[in-house]
């Protein structure tokens, strides 16, 4: 008898842990929240997938080695490749912009976080960087047009690199400063207690600890710069043959060519625009993967 009653007693005391035991209201809220999250993911993901699908569908048949290297046809209605000048232009202009803005931006962030802190100058620079982040890219293009292109008297790839660098700089400063801020103060103190000077602590401890975040920030800025159109058209003009020289002669980029070809009434031009779009996507993808790889290597060292 006792053995028979014991389990019954226990089960009466056993709490019901099943989901069904929750009040209806809580379950309803839970379900709604889940649905909203799924909707949010779809709202963000579906357009992205559609963009990728369309660019791939229209571009895959067009992009080949010839397309990536051949000159752009002078007359837009002519069918066939290529986008060589724009590929070269994108790489060297974005590359030069990165070379100009990343060292300056990281140094600026080091100044703000390690030296300036809350001083007046640092606060002014921080505010200026925030304001600069909000400057529309076409305005930056006009700015470079006025202070550089008109002064030099020529539209060049370098002018475009300058415009892109000005767009990237505030982003890099702010994202790098954010990363430096995440480095615990204990590390700086530990280094100081060993008799390290501040620059030494910064170079040997703080920057290595923040490098992966700084790299990601810089890569995002590069990807954004590679996608800019307006300032390029304004300060670099356009060109149909490959111009390796940043400092002389017009230049062009993939985004500029996408814009230019897409507004033409000809089927052939549209094809080239799609091809250029796919090429640009691939370039950005390759760089992003490369950046993740580099950041990952540093991160492993850190862990």
């Amino acid at each position, binding site marked *: 008898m006792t053995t028979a009653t014991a389990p019954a007693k226990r089960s009466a005391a056993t709490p019901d842990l099943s989901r069904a035991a929750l009040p209806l209201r809580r379950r309803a809220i839970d379900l709604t929240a889940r649905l909203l999250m799924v909707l949010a993911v779809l709202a963000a993901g579906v357009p992205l997938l559609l963009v990728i699908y369309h660019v791939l569908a229209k571009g895959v048949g067009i992009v080949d080695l010839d397309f990536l290297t051949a000159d752009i046809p002078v007359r837009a209605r002519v069918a066939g490749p290529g986008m060589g000048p724009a590929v070269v232009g994108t790489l060297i202009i974005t590359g030069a912009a990165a070379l100009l803005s990343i060292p300056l931006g990281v140094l600026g962030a080091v100044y703000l976080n390690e030296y300036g802190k809350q001083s007046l100058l640092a606060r002014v620079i921080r505010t200026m960087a925030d304001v600069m982040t909000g400057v529309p890219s076409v305005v930056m293009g006009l700015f470079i047009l006025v202070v550089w292109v008109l002064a030099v008297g020529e539209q060049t790839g370098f002018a475009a690199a300058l415009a892109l660098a000005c767009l990237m700089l505030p982003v890099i400063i702010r994202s790098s400063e954010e990363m430096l801020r995440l480095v615990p103060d204990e590390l700086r*103190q*530990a280094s*100081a207690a*060993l*008799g390290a000077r501040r620059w*030494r602590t910064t170079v040997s401890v703080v920057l290595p600890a923040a490098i992966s975040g700084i790299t990601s920030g810089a890569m995002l800025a590069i990807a954004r710069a590679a996608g800019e159109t307006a300032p390029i058209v304004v300060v670099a003009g356009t060109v149909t043959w490959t111009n390796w020289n940043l400092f002389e002669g017009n230049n062009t980029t993939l985004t500029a060519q996408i814009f230019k070809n897409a507004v033409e009434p000809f089927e052939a031009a549209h094809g080239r625009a799609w091809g250029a779009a796919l090429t640009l996507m691939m370039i950005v993808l390759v760089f992003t993967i490369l950046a993740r790889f580099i950041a990952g290597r540093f991160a492993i060292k*850190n*862990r």
Partner: protein
Amino acid sequence: MTSVTSISTLIPGNASAMPTSSARTVMQLTDVSVFYGAYEAVRGTTMPIREHQITAMIGPSGCGKSTVLRSLNRMNDLINGARIQGTITFHDQDLYAPNVDPIQVRRRIGMVFQKPNPFPKSIYENVAYGLRINGIKDNLDGRVEKALRDAALWDEVKGKLNTSGLALSGGQQQRLCIARAIAVQPEVILMDEPCSALDPIATGKIEDLMHELSRTFTIVIVTHNMQQAARVSHYTAFFTAEVDDKQVRHGRLVEFNDTGRIFTNPNDKRTEDYITGRFG
């Protein structure tokens, strides 16, 4: 004010109340007050730090132990608004004289922090860092090994010197930080509650270690653990927080004496109350 006699130990230049010892005085605090902005966190501290001895600082939370400790190697310089009054000498040189470079001070007076703070670098690089910044290039491997051996960590890490210092346990990390501090061969090592995050076994290891280290180094340790102070130190400074006429709390050194005296026969009633757990 329970005792007038203890106050005499606070008066500059009055060394008669302090235990005589053959050990040389390496550092001397004379009437040291430390300020954070306008707030006087510690008032009028006078005490010696003796060579190759372990000096413990004990007292309730917030009485300024860490503040005094940090002022010994000018780590307070890194805190905005922190400044000191009075003098702290190191081999009879004023540490805060205008021509003194705090970097030079910190190279001779090292520090181990309460929370283990290894660099996000390999174990080897953690220890080698101080050597590198001091421009020491010869026999790095040997020096790193010796520091790790002296910190009683070598046997646990010798096979994985290239793995991250952050992958060690808390107690191992703290010993790594000690190894890092002793690798540069400072004269004095300041330790701020080095065992507070550690289990009794790791604590025991570090205490044994301090005994070993005191043969070569002078050690100042802040601890909340009375037994630890009694076990490891030769001298003990008891601090407390006092409220003055203007209702502002200041840290004060109540009593400095050799540890035996402090724990068996303190001069001051407040010391006795604190040690016997009747405090506050």
